[in-house]
Every structure is written in C-alpha cells, then in structure tokens.
C-alpha cells in the first residue's frame, strides 16, 4: 500500500515540485511563450494559436501516448531501484576525503571570501558543471553503439511533447542518475573543501536560480511542436527549442548536432552547433521505414536492452579475447541511423 502511495506521490511531485521540468507553472509559462510566438512571429490569431498548441493529433498521437506510458512505468522502476543507486553525497564524501590527502590543497583556502561571492560562484558553477556533463553524456549516448541502442528510445518519438523528456529507457536513466550524482558530488565537495561552511545555493522556489530561469523561459518547448527560434547570436550561447527539434530530425544534415541542454556554447566549442531553421516541415524520429512501429512497450523496453547487451558482448570479445569481429547488421543500421 505504501508502495502505491509512493508512486502516486512521486508522480504528483513531478508536476508540483519547482525543481522538476514539468512543474505546472513552467508548463503554463511555456504555453504563454508559445502563444506569444505564434501571434507575433507566425501571425496567427489567439484562437488559431490555442488550437495549434493543443493539437489533439500531437497529444493523442501514438508517439505521445507511448510517452505517457513510459512516464508511469519509469516512475515505478525508478522507485524500486533508486535506493540502490550511488548518490551525490556518497561521491561528494569520497572526494572530500580524497582532498584531505592532497597536501598542497589547503582546506578552507577561500573560506574568507564574501558570502555573496561564494554563493554566486557555487550557484553558477553547479549550473555550468551540470549542463556540461549533460552535453558530454548526451554525446556519448549518440556515439557509443551500446548507449545509442538505449538512447534510440528517446529518438523514436515521432511527435514531441513536454512528456517526451521522460521517454527514456530505464538503463539510460541509470546513466543519467550517475551523471547527475557525479556532477553534483564534484561541485559540492570541491566548494565545501575550499570555501568551508559558507557555501550555499541561490534558489527561487527551491530551484537553482539558473535552472529556474531555464525552465521559466520555456525549457518545455524543447520537446514540443512549437519551433521557437532565437536570434543567431543568442543561439551560440543558449539552445533554442528549434535547435533541439533539429536534433530530433531525421535529415542527414542534422545528424550529430545540438547535444546541449541549456547552453549552446558546448556545441559551439566542440563543433556540433547547428543554428535553427524553420521546423514546420521537419520529420522527427529514427528515419527507419517502420518508425510508427517503435512505440510499443516491447520496442521501448526489451529491444533496446537486448541490442545494447549484444554490443557490450561484442566489445568484451574484442577487448578481452582479442577477436576480430565483422560488423553485424545492427551496427550497420546504427551507422545509417540519425544521431
């Protein structure tokens, strides 16, 4: 009974907790931004805009309904496995102890810095480290076949809705959890060791100030059918929703582009930036003949698991048994698939 209550509570929490992407206020603000975009940029009337935003063909599409199913199933899976996962505090404690052993790094070296400076620096660093680690891991998800097998679940969406953010294979969820724990662990331990007890986080409604603004300014539109574009200069710094839509496009010229979550500077620095285009006629998905068949639970849970395992097995044979392996069908498929 308690288990079911926890599932219910976790589900509700996704929409009522300002630290979460689909917090109801962020969703509402995304709608307002979308309305403004459609009225002022696309020259639609208010009625047309509303109709366009709440298009049932999008929200009741096969792709979207499978997003909702994955969301609920993953709530249960994550509830079961989360107590056994490595936490940020475990990593932070281990690193903090490690810093003690490094004699040339003095504990509390910058502890006398002004409080506002420490807090500002921590808030900003946490945001940047977290965002950069998302970029790196996302890149890996596309470039390592055994990870791409899992990440394909997300890219198999043929319609984007804010709930597509949850369209994630549970094994991929484990990778993301580790990433988050590692990013937080590094930042927390380094700051507490160097700056002492004065380290704190600037928050709005409990969320990191920068994360809050990222969400307030339409983070939910990254996964939507509203292709908002920024000025070109701004798209070097921040990823616009339209840029992320290109990331989901099946067009060849969009492969391996725009991995960034909030900041575009990582894509710019590492050569994966693609400025936005009009996304009205963009086709989303994996680009296979049977993309519409990729929305079943078997395709979303079982197939990626088996495929990823096969790749891992092949790596093992190659690395530990020194055997040359011919590329198999799925590897060839991977090479042709959109990134």
């Amino acid at each position, binding site marked *: 009974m308690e288990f079911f209550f926890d599932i219910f509570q976790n589900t509700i929490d996704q929409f009522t907790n300002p630290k979460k992407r689909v917090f109801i206020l962020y969703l509402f603000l995304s709608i307002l931004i979308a309305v403004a975009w459609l009225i002022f940029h696309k020259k639609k009337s208010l009625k047309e805009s509303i109709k366009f935003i709440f298009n049932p063909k999008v929200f009741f599409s096969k792709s979207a309904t499978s997003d909702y199913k994955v969301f609920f199933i993953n709530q249960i*899976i994550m509830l079961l496995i989360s107590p056994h996962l490595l936490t940020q505090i475990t990593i932070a404690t281990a690193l903090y102890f490690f810093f*003690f052993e490094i004699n040339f790094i003095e504990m509390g070296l910058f502890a006398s810095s002004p409080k506002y400076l420490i807090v500002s620096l921590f808030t900003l660093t946490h945001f940047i480290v977290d965002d950069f680690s998302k970029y790196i891991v996302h890149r890996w998800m596309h470039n390592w076949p055994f990870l791409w097998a899992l990440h394909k679940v997300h890219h198999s969406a043929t319609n984007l809705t804010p709930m597509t953010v949850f369209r994630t294979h549970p094994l991929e969820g484990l990778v993301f959890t580790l990433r988050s724990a590692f990013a937080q662990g590094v930042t927390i331990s380094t*700051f507490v060791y160097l700056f002492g007890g004065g380290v704190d986080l600037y928050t709005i409604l409990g969320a990191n100030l920068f994360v809050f603004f990222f969400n307030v300014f339409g983070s939910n539109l990254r996964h939507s059918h509203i292709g908002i574009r920024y000025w070109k200069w701004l798209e070097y710094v921040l990823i616009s929703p339209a840029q992320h839509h290109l990331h989901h496009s099946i067009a060849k010229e969009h492969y391996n582009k725009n991995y960034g979550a909030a900041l575009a500077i990582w894509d710019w620095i590492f050569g994966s930036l693609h400025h936005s285009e009009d996304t009205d006629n963009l086709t989303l998905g994996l680009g296979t003949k049977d993309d519409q068949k990729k929305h079943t639970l078997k395709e979303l849970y079982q197939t990626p698991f088996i495929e990823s395992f096969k790749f891992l097995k092949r790596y093992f044979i190659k690395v530990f048994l020194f055997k040359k392996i011919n590329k198999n069908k799925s590897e060839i498929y991977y090479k042709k698939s959109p990134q």
Partner: protein
Amino acid sequence: MKKSKLKTKLLASITCLSFGLTGLANAGAHSEDVYGPFPVTLKGYSGDCTNTVSYSGQIARHVQHDSLKHLSTKGDYSEMNSYYSGSDKNKQIWAPASKDGFPIKQTLLNDISSGKNLSGKTYKGTITSWPNNMTGPEVIDFWMSKAESNPKDVSVGLNYQQLLSKFIMGAVFYNQAVDNYLDEKMEADTKPNDKPYKDGACYTGKEHSWDEAFGYWGAAAHSLLLSAEQNYNVAKKKDLASADFNGDGVVDLKSEYVFAHAYYASSFDKGGKTTYLEDITRAFLDGRKLITSANGEKLSDMSRARLMAYVDDISSNWEKVIAESVFKYAGSTYKSLVALEDVSNADLAKEFDKYMKYWGELKGFSMALQVGKNNIGETGAKLNRMVGFGPMLLDETQIVGIDVNGNYVMDKVYSMNDAKLHMLKIQKLMIDQFGVEARGNDMLSDMADLASKIGTSESAEND
C-alpha cells in the same frame, strides 16, 4: 519577624502541597507507563513482599560511577578505588549530590544498597582498543593509577576523568545489561520464571534479571511520563518537579533520577530526530509486563520469542546511543583540531584542555561500543586505528604503546591533517555501520544540506 516566619511556613506548605498533589496526580494518571510496582507472581511465596521490582544494586553502581567520576579530578587513587573496587557501605555519595532547588534523598551508598562494587561487574575480556592486552578492570586500574599523579596529563593529552567515566558506562552498565542479563539470563533454562531468582526472594528469575538490566539502563521509573527535555533536565538536576514523581519533595535516586546512557539518549532525543530513550524504556516496560503476565509460570516459546524481540530492540538502540556519542565527540574533536591551528598562544591552554576532554569522551565511548554483545569486528579495528591510543599533540606525536614499566611510548604516525580526516571518517563509519540519526556536531552536514537543496540526483529524463 513573626510575620516573615509565618510567610515562610506558608510558602513551604504551599510548595509541599503542590509537589504532593503533582505527585499524586502523576502516580494516579499514568501508572501503566511507570516501571513498577509489579505484583508477586512467584508460586508458593508467603512473605510480606508486595512489589517485585528491585534494582537498587544497579543504582548503587551508577552512584559509584558518578562519585568516581567526581573524584577522578582530585588525583587520590585509594579514594577512587574505594568507589571502584570497594564495598564500604558508609561511603559518601559525591555525585549526584543535592544542590539548591534539587534535594536528593540519599547521601550514603548504604542508603541505596550495600556490598556492591563496579570492579566485579566490569567486562573481563581483552580490551583491544587499548595497548598491552589488558582486561577491562586492568585498563581502569591503569588509568586510576595514572590519574593519581596527573588527572589531566597535558604531556600525552589524556583526560582520565572522561576516559574512566565513558568506558565504565560501557564495560559495566552496557555490558552487564546486554551481554549478561538480556543475553544468558534470558535463555529458557537460565533463571527460569517459575523459580525465585535466589532462595527466599519474592521475584522470579526472569523478573529480576529483567529489572537488573533496566537498572543498568539508567532511566527513571517514570521516564516515559516525561519529555526528552525533562529527562535531560532531571539528569542535569534542573527540574525537581519532573524528577519528584511521588511528590515527597526530594529526589529518590533509586527510582526518580536519570543516569548514564539514558541521560545521553535524552540529550540526543531532545533534538527531535530520535526517540532512543522512549523506545528503550518502553521496550523494558513492555517486556516486564510480559514476564509478569506469565504469572509465575515458565515462559512459553511464544512469550520468550516476544521477549527476545524486546531484547533486540533494547540492544540495538542502546548500541546506537553509544554510536551517536562516538559520532558527536568525533565532531567535537575535529572542531578542536581546527581551532588549535588558529588559536592564539593566550588561548592555547584553554583550547587544548577542551581538545583533551573531547578526545577522552570519544575514546571512552568508542571503547564502550566494543564491549557489548556484538563483536563489531572490522568496524572496531577501523575505529581503534582512527581514534588512536591518545590524541595527536601539536608536534604531531601521539601515544603508540605502553612499555613494560607502564610509561607511554610516543611517536609520529601521521599528520594533523590525517587526524582531522580520521574524525570525519569516524562520523561516516557511525552512519554506515550503525545508522546514527541524531548526528550531533555533524561535520559533513554542509555537504548533505547542499545536496538536499539541489535535489535528488535520480533522473530518468532526457534533456
């Protein structure tokens, strides 16, 4: 003059009356939550006894411990030893002693119980947390003889008052309760419930064994009627109204005072995160009710199983209370180590004195943790290595052993930075191995607070 006398008498009468009424109200309203009295259940008993609860021997030992602790700063070995090994019934109670607003009924050990000592009940196994394979009584005797010449030995950093007190609480009270009375004496055929504890006694074997363990725990008989804060203030001699359950205007050490680990439990519980005192005292009370309900018959297998569940509850929580103390004093020691790095010369002696006290408490509690029923194995080894045999001195030397003449051997083993790191690792060890929750002086809480502010790292989301 007459007027003022009359006024004093009137005030005294009102005070006595109010205490009396409070006592009566307490006694009447919640007697089911008070440890005793319990009726005679022993078959065939024909004496005058009406209440089978008896643990005055344990209270006498608490008082001997408190008095020894009080005397340990005076540096008189024979006087200290008379409270440790002696059984002189006319010895004065040095602590807990009456103070203004907190009168204590007993002044001599004989007022509580006669013929009791601590040495006979001290854990006799090898103490691996101290050099030279000494037994429990040998460690205490060694410390008392060292304390004679120098109760606070700055040259090696030892505060013998803290070492003696915290280790005795473990090696006598904790060990006797969880490793004897709640262990061997709870076995089916040992001290059975259908026979008297000893010839002529009005209580059964199980009833008295259970009472003895409760006595060592140190809670007042009416502790369950008080909040953690009130229990704490009773032990601190600050709250007569809470202590004086029977309303006679004085505190009866036999049933109305809070001693030893029960006091430490209350100190953690008043922070609101834990309920050790309530949980342990409740388990003792419920266990005693269960034994009484057997009505002088042998305990059935089912009743014994239920009783052993109470034993588990008591033992595990008691162990956690000691682990919380280790956690807290590892934090205090860490703070002192940090303070010693920056303190000016003028304050050095004062800060070092605090450091010795905290390390002594840490060492005493960490040794106590290892004399319970459980062999804590590798955790004990880690703890002993990180705490050491003595605190690190400012020249980075510390006690590494004791030679054949009983002199301390000093050496440099690791740096001051390592000593600080050890304190943090001890805190982590107490969390990982014992699940401590009150976490006084948590030196890693800054990181935990930040982590909780940022939010969970668990994420199945594709940004």
